[in-house]
């Protein structure tokens, strides 16, 4: 069970000292508050490009990014999804549980049994514990941000974690006839007005949709619908259509917040020391 921190709780350590736990109320804030703290601490000298002034950012008179400015447009007139994004802390959908909002997941019986078995060992065996790529939804829902780089005909999704990427082809192509199997699939996107609808197929058989272990198979057809509400806010609807694992498609809606004036940092999995200690139960 998750540890619940209580305000002003103290406990005695083995050395006899008394230490105060963090007051939970102090940090029941938003990622925005933490980012603001981070920005203050790192200052305007662009340390690590954690803070870097990005051109084209709409700003309020005091120079801060205007997160409620209208959503930008690309030169071809389409909505521009470019930016660095992180899941909103207000959402109960998480990298731990894609079904976190309480959606009723229509499991095939074997898939529900697999999920139960994975939970019994606390998610031991998730591919990312060995630095293998996250599945598409898990990659969006983790702490590390995601950068969307949009050009006409091609959108690149750059993941800070593991320094991986994904391509979404918006040049009108269809799926190639000899599609191979990939961790991140092969994605084609089409615009429906200001909503980008992305269809991804061609998955390996081993992806986990979240850390709990909702299964996915090579029959997975993953659909995303992106809609940018304004400069600082976007919604993505994820639909899992995997007839081998689920009786019918199921969807979750997730809000995302823009992280302005920052950059994706390089994160290479070069210090993986967990697998030797992952016992599960």
């Amino acid at each position, binding site marked *: 069970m*998750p*540890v619940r921190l209580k305000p002003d709780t103290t*406990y005695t*350590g083995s050395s006899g*000292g008394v*230490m*105060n*736990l*963090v007051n939970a109320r*102090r*940090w*029941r*804030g*938003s*990622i925005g*508050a*933490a980012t603001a*703290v*981070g920005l203050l*601490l790192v200052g305007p000298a662009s*340390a690590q490009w*954690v803070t870097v002034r990005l051109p084209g950012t709409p700003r309020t008179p005091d120079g801060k990014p205007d997160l409620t400015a209208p959503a930008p447009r690309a030169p071809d007139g389409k909505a521009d999804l470019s930016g660095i994004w992180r899941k909103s*802390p*207000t*959402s*109960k959908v*998480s*990298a*731990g*549980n894609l*079904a*976190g909002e*309480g959606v*009723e997941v229509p499991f095939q019986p074997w898939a529900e049994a697999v999920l139960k078995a994975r939970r019994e*060992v*606390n*998610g031991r065996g*998730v591919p*990312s*514990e060995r*630095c293998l790529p*996250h599945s598409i939804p898990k990659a969006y829902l*983790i*702490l*590390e941000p995601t950068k969307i780089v949009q050009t006409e005909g091609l959108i690149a999704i750059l993941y*800070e*974690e*593991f320094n991986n990427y994904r391509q979404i082809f918006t040049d009108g192509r269809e799926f190639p006839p000899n599609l191979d199997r990939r961790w991140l699939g092969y994605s084609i996107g089409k615009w429906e007005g200001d909503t980008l609808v992305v269809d991804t197929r061609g998955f390996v058989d081993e992806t986990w949709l979240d*850390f*709990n272990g909702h299964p996915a198979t090579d029959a997975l057809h993953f659909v995303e619908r992106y809609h940018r509400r304004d400069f600082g806010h976007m919604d993505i609807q994820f639909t899992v259509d995997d007839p081998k694992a689920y009786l019918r498609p199921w969807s979750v809606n997730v809000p995302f917040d823009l992280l302005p004036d920052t950059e994706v*940092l390089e*994160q290479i*999995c070069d*210090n993986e*020391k*967990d697998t030797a*200690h*992952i*016992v*599960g139960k």
Partner: protein
Amino acid sequence: MKSRFARLVVGSIWLLAVVPVAPHRSFAAEYDVKKPLSLKGAVTKVEWKNPHAFFYIDVKDETGTVTNWALEMVGATALLRNGWKASTLKIGDEVTVEGSGAKDDSKQGQARIVVLVSTGQRLFAQPGQGTEPGQGAPPAQENRP
């Protein structure tokens, strides 16, 4: 699921059962909240890396025996975004650490709070790893009076 109440119950069970996660693997697969760690020692090494930053401390027990412990934090990029610098912990710094021990009883733990003894500065080593789903990232540093 026939009734809305039943759906709520099932949904709640899943919420309560969320596995607290670090970016690339599940916390509870490796660490145990029922093994709270409370250590004090001097930093011997810092690995400012991903997917986890580590620091190592020499802990002296009552008999004077020194054991070197490995303390795991979130990755370096996540720490940077939450106010840490690579120079925040230096070799020789005396620190106290609160966290959870490893399930395999190795001398490794997940650090949650790190306090620099010389300044009293409190640092959060697991930013964004809120204890409830959807919880925001706590600030890295706490300057308590």
